[in-house]
């Protein structure tokens, strides 16, 4: 009871609501898969998968720019028969895919999704951390979690009773271990500067001083490469190199078991993107604007946010109109169907744009924290805090999306390394660079008289 009464109800409500962030990586999977597929298509001058559709009245076949394809694939994976090869260890075989997927729900706990919310609540000052667990060893915890996901691959490879799976698992585990070292070491510089393992502190240090990418550009590159390697994606996907190992550790998996590995991989990308954004790109911090300034002009800030969203909606509209015009001139037999489909997108985008503009205008002119009183309780500062958190969250998402794109971009550009090259790169190059970077950073930090 004491514990419950130690906090106000709003504090409890927000603390519990924060657990919703656990699902962010899962939502990202839904975003990343179409992004990867169509992005890969565009890079290769293809169209990417865009044929699946849902039929709705009036607008006809709705393809959601190819998004329906992923729903179809997901449905297929979900309803396929799960089977195990003869002679496998059934327990390990079935548990293995669950491990990387379970990590997906644990990892987001330490990421600061927004700056600490500080607001008055009935005269009391309430402070709520931006991460689900405001741990002082956040980074280490995160690394710990992501190391556990290697167990999934290990168990899968071992339990599959297939030499390809086993080789894949060996490669995965050795590569994960190797690159964890690089990952940790390249991070040490920024930790040294921020003087904390707490991710919120690191973000705040960056907000107050300079972004990690500027302070530690070398470490940033090392970290980026190492984390790409750690997720086991091209050009470091030797663990599932098709020409050598069929599909690596998940060769023997099908249906949703394979789906779990697949989703595990994408959410790993998501987590790593958030981590890089947090460590090197100022996390939730809005560029060139401090949190205090933003909070002082909350109405304007929200208006700018709405303006940005409205701009995105208008840009989308422009693309749709432009392409509709071009489409009319072609002789595709289904062009009128597509135009009917685009009508829906146009309506939605117009409504969204109008709504954002209206919201932005309202925020600009009518946002005044002093006026916000609910049942005699002044919630003005709470509203400002929520607004700040919202902006922070969106900024963080935007930053992480950039890195998600980097993952996809790199995968579809660079050819796969040979396995010994991967090890060579990890142990003999990145590790050394990271070490030198750490020493240099430490010396400079000492000379400049930091903390």
């Amino acid at each position: 009871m004491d514990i419950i009464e130690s906090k106000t109800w709003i504090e409890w409500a927000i603390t519990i609501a924060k657990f919703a962030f656990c699902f962010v990586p899962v939502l990202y999977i839904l975003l990343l898969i179409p992004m990867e597929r169509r992005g890969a298509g565009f890079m290769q001058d293809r169209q990417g998968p865009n044929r699946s559709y849902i039929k709705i009245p009036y607008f006809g076949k709705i393809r959601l720019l190819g998004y329906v394809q992923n729903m179809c694939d997901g449905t297929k994976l979900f309803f396929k028969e799960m089977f195990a090869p003869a002679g496998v260890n059934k327990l390990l075989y079935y548990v293995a895919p669950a491990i990387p997927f379970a990590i997906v729900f644990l990892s987001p706990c330490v990421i600061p999704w927004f700056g600490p919310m500080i607001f008055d609540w009935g005269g009391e000052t309430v402070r709520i951390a931006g991460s689900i667990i405001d741990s002082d060893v956040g980074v280490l915890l995160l690394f710990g979690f992501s190391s556990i996901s290697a167990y999934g691959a290990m168990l899968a490879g071992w339990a599959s009773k297939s030499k390809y799976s086993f080789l894949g698992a060996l490669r995965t585990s050795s590569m994960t271990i190797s690159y964890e070292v690089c990952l940790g070491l390249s991070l040490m510089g920024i930790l040294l500067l921020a003087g904390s393992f707490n991710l919120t502190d690191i973000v705040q240090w960056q907000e107050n001083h300079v972004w990690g990418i500027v302070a530690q550009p070398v470490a940033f590159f090392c970290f980026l490469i190492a984390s790409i390697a750690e997720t086991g994606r091209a050009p470091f996907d030797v663990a599932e190199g098709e020409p050598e190992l069929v599909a690596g550790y998940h060769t023997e998996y099908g249906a949703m078991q394979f789906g779990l590995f697949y989703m595990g991989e994408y959410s790993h990308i998501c987590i790593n993107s958030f981590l890089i954004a947090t460590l090197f790109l100022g996390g939730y911090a809005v560029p060139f604007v401090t949190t205090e300034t933003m909070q002082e002009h909350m109405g304007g800030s929200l208006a700018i946010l709405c303006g940005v969203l409205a701009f995105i909606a208008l840009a989308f509209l422009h693309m749709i109109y432009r392409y509709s015009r071009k489409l009319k001139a072609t002789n595709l037999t289904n062009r009128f169907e597509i135009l009917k489909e685009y009508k829906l997108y146009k309506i939605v985008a117009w409504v969204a744009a109008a709504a954002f503009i209206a919201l932005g205008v309202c925020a600009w002119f009518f946002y005044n924290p002093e006026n916000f009183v609910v049942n005699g309780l002044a919630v003005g500062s709470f509203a400002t805090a929520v607004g700040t958190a919202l902006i922070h969250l969106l900024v963080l998402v935007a930053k992480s999306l950039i890195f998600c794109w980097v993952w996809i971009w790199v995968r579809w550009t660079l050819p796969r390394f040979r396995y010994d090259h991967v090890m060579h790169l990890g142990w003999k190059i990145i590790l050394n660079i990271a070490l030198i970077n750490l020493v240099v950073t430490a010396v400079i930090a000492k000379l400049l008289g930091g903390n």
Partner: protein
Amino acid sequence: MRVIKQKPMTVIERLYIFEAIRGLWTTLKHAARGLFRYETLPTISYPEGQPEIRNTYRAKHRLMLRPDGTPRCVACGMCAAACPAHCIFIEATQSDDPRIEKRVMRFDIDHLTCVFCGLCAEACPVDALRMDTKQIIFEHRSREDFVAHLYDLTNWDPKDYPNDEQSQMAPGGTKNAEARKVWGMEVK
């Protein structure tokens, strides 16, 4: 034997990272093109959009017709002799028309076996067999339906070949009446 010496890589190239960035820039350009200039993608969304087929494309066969509508084919078997896939089957018979000695009774092309090399059209001494129909879609219910018979091969419309004088001489073509006069008497 010629030995081509590869240029040794420069230091910058050996560093890989810059070359990788160059590659990334290239793919980024392509991705941006797909995103912002979607219609310029070379992919044709088949079957809604059909590829443009040239006249010289070796598509499904057709048999040219005389002005009176009989196939020009004289069943000489040159196409069957030239065919590397042995997919042409011809049977000949005596023609009722005294101006023509030999006429084709059965002319089957098995399009499942055909390799569309065009040697048959090349071999034809009377320009009876052509592959300019631009029909590239072969969809049938059974294997037997893939065998094009005399009827299928002669059942084409001169309107589809507006610029081809020879095709226009066939019944229904613009030059048919003229050609009929030259050809002479009517044949049942």
